[in-house]
């Protein structure tokens, strides 16, 4: 009798445990995937200068590549990185479109409607504010602007700004730059003559 009662109790407890675990837990976070599938076959980059150049991702990848250390911070202090960034130097993309001269600007934009403007000095890697990993301002080491297509050795995903994203890179590690210039999903570069 007692064994029977204990057996029933055990089954009830087991049932309660299972029911509790499945029905009282709140709905799991249902964050819908908002990013498109990473199919960049129809993507291209247009560079408008004195001539107009259009590149597919394969053509971008076929250009001479550069790798450096990138680390960004948002306007409210959220750090992104550090990353090992690989891509094409902005200066290498501007050159075939006529290049950039003192007083000119490079307007870099994306289909989400975001635009950032770099002046000639910045295109040369100068004039950026830099921080150490503790977000204390430091004297800027030499910097370069990269159009990144690989992050940490892997193709840049859509969620990270792929297929092409601006990255401010340094040969040194731990150099943080202001993230507003790190334009995601770049598809257009215009050279504005002074």
């Amino acid at each position, binding site marked *: 009798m007692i064994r029977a*009662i204990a057996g029933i109790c055990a089954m009830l407890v087991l049932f309660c445990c299972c029911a509790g675990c499945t029905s009282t837990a709140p*709905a799991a976070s249902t*964050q*819908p995937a908002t990013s498109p599938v990473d199919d960049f076959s129809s993507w291209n980059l247009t560079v408008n200068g004195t001539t107009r150049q259009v590149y597919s991702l394969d053509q971008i990848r076929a250009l001479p590549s550069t790798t450096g250390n990138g680390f960004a911070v948002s*306007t409210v202090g959220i750090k992104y990185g550090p990353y090992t960034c690989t891509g094409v130097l902005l200066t290498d993309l501007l050159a075939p479109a006529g290049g950039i001269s003192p007083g000119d*600007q490079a307007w870099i934009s994306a289909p989400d409607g*975001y635009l950032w403007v770099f002046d000639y000095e910045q295109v040369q890697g100068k004039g950026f*504010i830099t921080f150490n990993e503790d977000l*204390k301002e430091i004297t800027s080491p030499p910097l370069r602007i990269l159009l990144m297509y690989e992050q940490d050795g892997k193709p840049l995903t859509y969620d990270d700004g792929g297929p092409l994203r601006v990255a401010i890179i340094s040969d040194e590690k731990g150099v943080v730059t202001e993230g*507003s210039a790190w334009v995601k999903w770049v598809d257009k570069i215009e050279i504005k003559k002074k």
Partner: protein
Amino acid sequence: MTAPRTIWILVSFFLIALLCSTTGCSSGVQQQKTVLRVVPAGSLLQPFDEVEKAFEVQHPDVDVQVEGHGSIQAIRQVTDLHRPVDVVAVADASLIPDLMFRTDPTTGTNFTDDYTPFATNAMVIAFTNTSKYADEITSANWYQVLSRTDVRVGISNPMLDAAGYRSIMVALLADRYYKNTTLFPMLIGSHFAPPLSAPVTGGIATVTLPEVLRPSDEKLVIRDGSIFVLSHLEAGGIDYAFEYRSVAQGHNLRWINLPQAIDLSSPECADEYGKVRVILGFQRFSAIGQERTGQPIVYAVTVPNTAPNRQLAQEFADLVIEKAKIGGKGWPAPLN
């Protein structure tokens, strides 16, 4: 086996099983908490930290994730980036109808249909004990102190931060209030090459910013966000910063209040504020133009129609509104 012993065994069995089930479930619940994604303007981060803690006490099954951005960028998380955001709170209420009362092409409904203004703020001059002339500056002489050649002043980037273009508006309004047209040039305009001017047309003083905001001397410092300006202030790199009063308070800084006619806090002065305008150097976002006209600072909160957790989101927004009425350290001032 005696009856009391049997009962004791059964009770123990139940208690052990209950403990196991609770332990087992709690770790499962931990993994499956509902995420409530809240995106406020940067100047709301400190008070929203307080709301987050209170809300999570009320709702142990909810993980509130607060992610700060500039106000426009906060809205863009919903409208342009289509992220699953539950609550948006901005430092400029007018941005919500401008940017969110329009159709979301993915749903066919508006991004949102309503919003609630819940607080206001004022621009002040923040400083520290080590700022030059800290024992001398007052609400009456602030512009004279800031104009001194050995005093360094910081603002956040008007392209990125509402506090940035509001800082420029304060300098333009000071020109009018003190009837001294050299103030804007001394405080802001003359520190660029070429200098920024503020021509008056139709009674409105307008300053057009260059595409790249790089001061030509070391007197004026511009950083992307308020936290970097204040970090510079606290490190002694600058002496004074144009900042929101609530942020200065939240950072334990000293500050002086400015006359209401120039601090952008008073609805009664809205007409006066409207006589200054800042045109940004370029259209950073395709969704919103480059012009910013002076108006009273009003914070607002909304629940996007695409919020994954609408009921919880509304409860969170209600808690923000409720706590804003009480105010406190770091909170923007309650609306009257």
